[in-house]
């Protein structure tokens, strides 16, 4: 009981000192908030740009076909945001606009386009491109292949329907109008089914993690990785602050005064670790709250798992701080080592927000990252927040972090020179 009181007294004093140290608070709290918010905003803007493309290609369209497929292609082209298709009077006018560089390409739909599709005769949509604008020409050609593919599917289905009906003798006794009606009815049923399948695919591709949890995609998932990544990176900045604070006590003589008092030596270390551990938890709470409220990041479905991984990360970070204090000679040196360590471990451990995350990479760098607490902390956060994992699913990460923290702590207590 006395030891707990001593530990709490040391922690209380340390918290007062931390609150007075505005420089460290700015690095540990304010900087990650600013950088995290900035990165998140930039990524959200970039994601928004994909919906509002910056590319807009002018093309001339000459539709000589009077049938349904010509109209269908023209309609499809107007629906494509990257293309502004303007009808030209004739082929010569369209070509002239290409030559003048007014448009990137001219699209010519021949007069017998629908008829040939109906008769299952090969046909083509002609794209006249401007050699001076190769990128634009390439984009228009690509888009046209996509558009035509849709029509080709329609033609293939229509051909198939007709072949089946003919072979079955369904059309043998019907007049031309009746044949078209039967054919249209069958096509209507098939295309309705096809469109329904597109909306509610019978076969879909779902990304799952190893535990079977469904994985989202897109910017939301990236932000759910980005906030823990920034948080973990800045959590480990505490290593320099904490280790230099302990060595400053040795340099200033306050540690000597503490050692002359009847409190066990380990309570001095434990009190410091408790104070800095609470600071880490405060970092996590502030950053995740901002991420949740402003950027709609997911906090997962298991608060227990989220708390557990946070406590484990806090433990390993403050233990690493003590380890640095045990080996550094001066407070200044400890501060520098802590700063370098925070950046290097963040880089190797995958805390720089890259996608896909480094800690899930293959090869040498992926293996190397597993030796850092960052990789396990991020894997834990990612599973909890991005993949809705529960506490049992992050036990390997928790175990590794706690084990690493214990090793750091024991070496620090063994090696630290109080005098």
């Amino acid at each position, binding site marked *: 009981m006395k030891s707990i009181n001593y530990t709490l007294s040391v922690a209380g004093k340390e918290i007062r000192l931390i609150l*007075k140290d505005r420089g460290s608070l700015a690095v540990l709290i304010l900087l990650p908030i600013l950088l995290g918010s900035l990165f998140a905003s930039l990524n959200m803007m970039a994601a928004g740009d994909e919906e509002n493309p910056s590319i807009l290609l002018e093309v001339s369209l000459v539709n000589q076909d009077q049938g349904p497929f010509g109209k269908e292609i023209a309609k499809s082209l107007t629906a494509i945001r990257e293309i502004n298709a303007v009808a030209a009077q004739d082929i010569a006018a369209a070509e002239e606009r290409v030559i003048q560089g007014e448009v990137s390409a001219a699209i010519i739909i021949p007069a017998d386009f629908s008829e040939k599709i109906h008769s299952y005769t090969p046909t083509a949509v002609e794209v006249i491109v401007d050699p001076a604008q190769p990128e634009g020409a390439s984009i228009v050609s690509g888009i046209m292949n996509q558009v035509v593919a849709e029509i080709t599917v329609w033609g293939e289905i229509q051909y198939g329907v007709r072949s089946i009906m003919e072979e079955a003798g369904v059309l043998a006794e019907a007049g031309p109008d009746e044949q078209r009606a039967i054919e249209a009815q069958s096509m209507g049923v098939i295309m309705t089914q096809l469109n329904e399948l597109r909306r509610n695919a019978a076969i879909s591709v779902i990304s799952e993690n190893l535990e079977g949890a469904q994985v989202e995609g897109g910017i939301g998932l990236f932000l759910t990785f980005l906030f823990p990544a920034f948080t973990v990176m800045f959590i480990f900045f505490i290593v320099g602050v904490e280790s230099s604070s302990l060595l400053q006590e040795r340099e200033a003589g*306050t540690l*000597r005064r503490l*050692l002359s*008092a009847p409190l066990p030596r380990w309570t001095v270390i434990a009190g410091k670790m408790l104070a800095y551990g609470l600071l880490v938890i405060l970092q996590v709470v502030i950053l995740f709250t901002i991420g949740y409220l402003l950027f709609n990041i997911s906090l997962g479905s298991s608060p227990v798992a989220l708390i557990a991984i946070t406590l484990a990360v806090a433990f390993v970070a403050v233990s690493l701080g003590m380890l640095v204090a045990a080996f550094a000679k001066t407070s200044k040196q400890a501060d520098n080592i802590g700063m370098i360590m925070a950046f290097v471990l963040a880089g190797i451990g995958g805390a720089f927000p890259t996608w896909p995350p480094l800690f899930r990479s293959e090869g040498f760098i992926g293996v190397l990252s597993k030796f850092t607490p960052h990789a396990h902390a991020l894997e834990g956060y990612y599973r909890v927040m991005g993949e809705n994992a529960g506490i049992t699913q992050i036990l390997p990460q928790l175990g590794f972090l706690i084990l690493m923290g214990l090793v750091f702590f024991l070496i620090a207590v063994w090696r630290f020179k109080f005098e």
Partner: protein
Amino acid sequence: MPTILEVENLSKKYGDFEAVKGINFSVEEGEVFGLLGPNGAGKTQTISMLTGVIPPTSGTARISGHDLHSDMDEVKKVNGLVPQDLALYPTLSARVNLNFFGRIYGLRGKELKDRVEDVLRIVALTDRADETVDKYSGGMKRRVNIAAGLVHQPQLLFLDEPTVGVDPQSRNHIFESVQRLNRERGMSVVYTSHYMEEVELLCSRVAIIDEGKIIAMDTVKNLIGILGGGIIYVGLEKVDDALLEQLAQLPAVSEAALVPPPVMPPPSEGEEPIAEADPVVTNPVVKIVAENSQQAVVNVISFLNDQDRPLTSLEILEPNLESVFLHLTGKKLRE
């Protein structure tokens, strides 16, 4: 008077270097005991061992009946330490600092509050107790430093060079505080310093420590008495044994001896050796221990004039602890 501190063969070694070499001394209850010595003499190491900051290599001590090895927690409760450094948290106020140092001695609640107010009164900082320490002058910081060592009401207070870097006014205040604590509260004090004036003023008994050893220990009066009436250093062109004997026979002179010449370091590798030592010491200095320095100076100068031996230098040291240290070690306290 019962003994509050009994030190037996206490030593501290770092590898081959022996910082404290088996020292013995005792402090009586209610006594202000001085440890006088130059920087690096082993004073702080001795205090660090007695306050439980570092373990001794060998030897032991008993403080208020508690053994240093087997009863360290009780020893620490009895002791109060005022380190040489300003061992305070500068960004916290004096009151918060004192509250914290009280808490680590187990004080809580009203008792803690009363003790903090009491020590603030002792060091006369009640009015400015809520200002952060970094806004204080050097002297005020020293006073808070002392207050932090008093907050748990120790029976034995160790003051390690408490006036380093302090202005004269604050120094006087510190002296008054120590004297008042000793006089009014009966607190025993071990006071280390390399300022002989402080030790002479405050301490009833003094141990002179040099190179980890106690070379003399007595009351201030008895230590100064070693020198009789003072020391006179006389520089001459040439000195022989006959002259030394004649000087020692003069009235008011009790002793005359040649001050050993400085030892030349051996030549380093590749360096030309210095020419063979001259058997005749040039510019020798004679140390004369006087029974009465004023009378002895007159007699010595008169005698040397009669002998037609011109003086090259003359220095008179009044009898004090500085002179005692010089007499015993051949070194000055503040070298």
